[in-house]
């Protein structure tokens, strides 16, 4: 049984449809990458899994059980956690408080404040700083840490590298390595192809709301990816 299965998802906003008949399977323990240009429907995909958006048709199954009827807050207690696009830390709360809020669901597991501070040591000295004053990279670390606090089985991360300097991205991916190394299942959405090809066990590329390419990174050629990414032939 796969950890996450999507079958025939068609999510949209109002009358605007962003995903067209998307089906995916994510296995326990793997790192799954989702590629695509801006507007390809990557964030919509993650939001559908996390429960912020609903697909009018199709199924979302987690550990074999259909979950599409559950609201986002219930899916967190099942072990699905999303690091949203644009990080969305709580600006008026301190770093420490942000992490505490992350554990609101009181799900048991290996992750707690100490362990998050271990993985992201840069957060320790920022503990009592208000999150709105953090730099982009610090906010991203906080957002990931906050999601880990809920002890997820499936961690969804939307654009780790968005708007960050290469050095910061490298550090973040290093920290992420520790997370994936602990056996956690991760779905990574990225525009930055190189990073994702390095860390993902399998990738899937979205173009205009449809899955156009899927497979392990080493089996895909550069040309294939470029074509799928830009839609040029």
């Amino acid at each position, binding site marked *: 049984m796969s950890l996450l299965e999507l079958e025939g998802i068609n999510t949209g906003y109002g009358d605007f449809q962003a995903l067209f008949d998307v089906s995916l399977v994510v296995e326990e323990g793997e790192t799954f990458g989702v590629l695509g240009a801006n507007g390809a429907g990557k964030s919509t995909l993650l939001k559908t899994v996390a429960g912020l958006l609903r697909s009018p048709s199709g199924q979302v199954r987690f550990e074999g059980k259909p979950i599409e009827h559950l609201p986002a807050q219930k899916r*967190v207690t099942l072990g699905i956690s999303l690091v949203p696009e644009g990080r*969305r830390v709580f600006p008026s709360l301190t770093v420490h408080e942000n992490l505490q809020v992350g554990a609101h669901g009181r799900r048991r597991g290996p992750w707690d404040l100490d362990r998050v501070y271990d993985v992201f040591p840069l957060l320790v000295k920022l503990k009592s700083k208000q999150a709105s004053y953090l730099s982009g990279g610090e906010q991203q670390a906080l957002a990931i840490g906050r999601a880990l606090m809920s002890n997820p089985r499936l961690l969804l991360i939307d654009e780790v590298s968005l708007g960050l300097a290469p050095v910061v991205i490298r550090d973040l991916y290093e920290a992420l390595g520790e997370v994936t190394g602990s056996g956690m299942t991760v779905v990574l959405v990225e525009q930055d192809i190189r990073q994702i090809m390095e860390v993902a066990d399998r990738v899937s590329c979205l173009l205009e709301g449809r899955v156009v390419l899927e497979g392990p990174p080493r089996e895909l050629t550069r040309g294939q990816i470029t074509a799928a990414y830009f839609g040029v032939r």
Partner: protein
Amino acid sequence: MTWVNVVIQGVLLGGLYALYATGLSLVFGVMRLVNLAHGDLSIMGAFACLVLVGILDVNPLLSLVLVLPMIFVVGYLLQRLMLNFTLKGDDMRPLLATFGLSVIIQNGLLVGFSADSRGLDAGWIENASLSLGGGLAVGWFPLLTLVVAILVIVLLNSFLTRTRLGRAFRATSDDQEAARLMGIDNRHIYALAMGIALGIVALAGVFMGIRTTFTPGIGPARLIFAFEAVIMGGLGSSWGPWRVASHWAWPRRWASSSRRAGESS
């Protein structure tokens, strides 16, 4: 020395203003809802107190032990079963719904209690005063009002900053969607906020009821009272009333963030 007296009385009365404003701004801060039935719900609290005093024959201040939890439950259910549904879509719906509620409460009270003006008798404390010398005197009751108001605001503050639930309130206020991703049920948080806010205004309603008389129709005047407090707090700085309201009760940093949220939305 009369002006000193006036100032003292004013400061003491300010406590009541602050309670009304706190309720209004707590609800607005957490869910961007302006409750037009705010004043009527506070009067409802005063009448609930009146009934309990009649049945149990206790001091109205003591009856608060029962009144406040009751009003809290009313607020919780009101939000959960009704107002939450109006938060989707345009901002006209919660206004119209709370306005309808205001009419229902006013006339419900009128049916139950007639239009006569009522008062709550708190015994000796109402008239006793503390002499400060030099012809100055401070009534015990106004003093108690101020102390209670400060206490409520301090307690609310530490609830918001120190507890798990309080953090969930602030997280929801900052970003409702991100809060849901942390497993926070926003519908529950909204309902709790409404319950707490109504508890606070009911408290204000009871103190007001001891201070002066009240009738079923006085609610709207109390809403305006709250609104004035919200506006007065910030005249000269800006017209953003929610920010202004938070000067009364909320930590500054929450205030600054809700302003940001308000502007960006």
